[in-house]
C-alpha cells in the first residue's frame, strides 16, 4: 500500500505539534518584562527545557507502549529508531533543566549555585523525588549508550530500562507542585494529567493486558525443537485460533517460554515460515544471550507472547513492483517467510542471501525448495565481510547481480552494521529511500 509510507511522517507531525504547544504554555504564563537579568533568562531556559523534557519523556514511553497500530503501520523498527534517537536527547535535556534552574535561581537570589541546589532539593516540594527520577533516567541513558549497551546482556539492559517508569512517576509530582505553568492553571493540569493517564493506560493495555489475554486464549505451546545447523534451532509452536491474530509473514513477536530459567525474560524473534491458523514457527540463532538455552526446550512448554508486531510485511510493498529480498546471516528468518508468501512468480522476487560460509546459510534447503517450486531467483553471496567494491553487496556487484534493482521494492534484514552498509549501497544503485524496507533485530 503506497499510503503506508506517509504514516511515519503523519505520526511525527502529530508528535512535533506538541512542542509548540508546550512552548506556548510558557509564553502565555510569562509576563512581558519579567525577564530582565541573566538569572531570569537562565531560569526561563530551565523551565522551558523542563517542559520539553517532560513532554518528550511522555512520547518516549508512548512509543514503547506497543500500540498495535504503531507497531504494524509505522513499524516497530522505525519506532525503535525514533525512540533511540530521542531518548539520548531527552535525558540530556532533563539534566540541562536541573542545571539551568539551579543556576538561574542562584543568580536571581544572589546565592551560590551549590547552596541554591541544596535549597531547591530540600526545601521545594517534591524536587527531591524528581532528582531521584532524573538519576534513574541518566542511569538508563548511560546504559543505552552504544559502547555500554554492547557489553550488557540483553536481559540486564531490558530490565534496567524498565526503571524509566518509576523515573517518570517520580518526576511527575514536582511538575504540579513547583511547576508554575501547572500549579496555577487548572486547564493545564487537566490536559497534562489527561495525556499522562492516556499513555499509562496504553502501556497497561498493550504491554500487559493484551499479551496476557492472548497468551491465555490461544494456549501457545512448543511442539518441536529442530536443529537447523551450528547454533541454530527452529521452534515449532501450536495454538488455538491463531488466525484471529492476523499474523503475517515478516512479523515478529516477543516470546516468553515458561520453563525454568526462561520465564522471566522475553525475546523478539521473527516468524520464519508463513503462519497458519494452528501453527507458527520461529528460528533462532545462538546470539550469545540466552538463545542457546532454547535448544533444550521441551515439547509442551507453555509460551506467552506479545505480538505479532511489525510492518516488515507485504503491505509495505508497491503492488506493481518486483521485489528484491536481501538477508544477512540470521536475518533470513522474516525474509524466508516473505519469500514463501509474496505473490508473483519467476523473477518477480529475487533473494540475495549473505553469509560468511556455506554452513552459515540458515534454512538453505528450504529456500532452495521454495525457489524451485515458485521459480524465484536465489543467490547465495559468500565470503568474508569487506567494505570495498569487492563485497558481494557493493553497489557495482548489486547492479550486476540484479540489473533492475533500482526499480524494485527492497526488503532488507540483517545485523545492524550490515544493514546500514547495504542501505547505503542500495541508495547508490538508485533505490529511493522509501522503497527500502528494513527490519532491525537488535533492540
Amino acid at each position, binding site marked *: 500500500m503506497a499510503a503506508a509510507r506517509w504514516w511515519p511522517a503523519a505520526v511525527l507531525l502529530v508528535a512535533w505539534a506538541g512542542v509548540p504547544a508546550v*512552548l506556548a504554555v510558557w*509564553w502565555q504564563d*510569562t*509576563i*512581558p*518584562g*519579567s*525577564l*530582565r*537579568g541573566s*538569572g*531570569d*533568562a537562565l*531560569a*526561563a*531556559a530551565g523551565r*522551558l*527545557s523542563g517542559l*520539553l523534557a517532560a513532554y518528550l519523556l511522555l512520547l518516549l514511553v508512548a512509543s514503547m507502549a506497543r500500540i498495535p497500530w504503531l507497531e504494524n503501520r509505522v513499524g516497530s523498527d522505525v519506532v525503535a529508531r525514533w525512540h533511540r*534517537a530521542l531518548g*539520548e*536527547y531527552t535525558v*540530556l*535535556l532533563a539534566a*540541562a533543566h536541573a542545571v539551568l534552574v539551579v543556576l*538561574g*535561581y542562584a543568580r*536571581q*537570589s*544572589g546565592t551560590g549555585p551549590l547552596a541554591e541546589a541544596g*535549597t531547591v532539593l530540600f*526545601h*521545594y*516540594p517534591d*524536587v527531591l523525588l524528581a532528582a531521584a527520577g532524573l538519576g534513574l533516567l541518566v542511569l538508563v541513558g548511560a546504559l543505552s*549508550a552504544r559502547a555500554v549497551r554492547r557489553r550488557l546482556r540483553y536481559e540486564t539492559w531490558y530490565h534496567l530500562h524498565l526503571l524509566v517508569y518509576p523515573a517518570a512517576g517520580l518526576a511527575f509530582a514536582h511538575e504540579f*507542585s*513547583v511547576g*508554575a505553568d501547572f*500549579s*496555577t492553571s487548572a486547564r493545564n493540569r487537566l490536559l497534562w494529567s489527561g495525556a499522562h493517564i492516556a499513555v499509562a493506560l496504553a502501556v497497561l493495555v498493550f504491554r500487559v493486558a493484551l499479551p496476557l489475554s492472548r497468551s491465555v486464549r490461544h494456549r501457545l505451546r512448543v511442539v518441536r525443537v529442530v536443529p537447523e545447523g551450528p547454533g541454530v534451532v527452529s521452534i515449532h509452536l501450536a495454538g488455538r485460533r491463531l488466525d484471529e491474530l492476523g499474523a503475517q509473514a515478516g512479523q515478529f513477536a516477543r516470546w516468553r517460554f515458561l520453563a525454568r530459567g526462561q520465564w522471566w525474560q522475553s525475546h523478539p524473534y521473527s516468524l520464519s515460515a508463513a503462519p497458519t491458523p494452528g501453527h507458527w514457527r520461529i528460528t533462532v540463532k545462538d546470539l550469545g544471550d540466552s538463545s542457546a538455552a532454547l535448544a533444550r526446550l521441551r515439547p509442551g512448554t507453555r509460551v506467552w507472547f506479545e505480538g505479532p508486531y511489525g510492518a516488515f510485511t507485504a503491505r509495505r510493498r508497491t503492488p506493481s513492483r518486483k521485489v528484491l529480498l536481501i538477508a544477512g546471516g540470521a536475518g533470513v528468518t522474516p525474509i524466508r517467510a516473505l519469500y514463501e508468501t509474496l505473490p508473483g512468480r519467476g523473477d518477480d522476487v529475487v533473494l540475495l542471501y549473505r553469509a560468511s560460509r556455506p554452513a552459515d546459510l540458515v534454512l538453505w534447503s528450504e529456500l532452495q525448495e521454495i525457489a524451485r517450486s515458485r521459480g524465484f531467483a536465489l543467490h547465495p553471496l559468500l565470503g568474508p565481510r569487506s567494505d570495498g567494491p569487492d563485497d558481494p553487496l557493493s553497489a557495482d556487484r548489486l547492479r550486476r547481480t540484479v540489473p533492475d534493482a533500482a526499480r524494485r521494492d527492497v526488503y532488507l534484514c540483517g545485523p545492524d552494521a550490515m544493514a546500514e552498509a547495504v542501505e547505503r549501497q542500495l541508495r547508490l544503485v538508485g533505490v529511493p529511500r522509501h522503497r527500502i524496507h528494513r527490519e532491525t533485530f537488535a533492540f
Partner: protein
Amino acid sequence: MRKTATALLATGAGLSLLIGAKAASGGSPRPALAAPAAAAAPSGAATPGAPAAAPTPPPSAGAVSGTFPGSVVDTRYGPVQVQAVLTSGRLTDVTVLQQTEGGRSTQIDAYALPRLKAEAMKAQSAHIDVVSGATYTSTGYAASLQAALDAAHR
C-alpha cells in the same frame, strides 16, 4: 551522539531566541503598579476605584501618622498584604502581613521583599519597579501598599 549534540545546540539557540523575543516584548525596568489586571487583582473593597496609575498624594500633604493596612491582593501564588507605617506623612516602614508561600515562592519572597521595601522607602510611594524573578510578589506588594497609602491620605 553527534546528532544529539547538534540537536541540543539547536534547541539552545531556539530557546534563547524565544526567551529573547519574550524579554523584548515587554519594557524594562517595569513599574510594579502598572501590572496587568489579571496578575494582581486587588480583592475586597479596600481600594475602591483607586486607579492603578494615580499618583500618590505627596507625603507631606496631610502629615498623617499611624499604621495603615493595605488591601489583600490575590496573586496566582497566593495573597499578598502589607501595611504602611507613616510618621508625620513620611513612609517610615512597610511590614508584610501576608506573603506567598511554598517552595519557590518562599525563596523568592525572601530576597524580593527586602528589596521592595527598600525601593518603597526610597520612593516614598508604591511606584516601585518589579524585582527580577518576583513579578507576582512585586505587583501584589505595590498594589497593597498603594491601597494602604490611599487609606492613610483619605
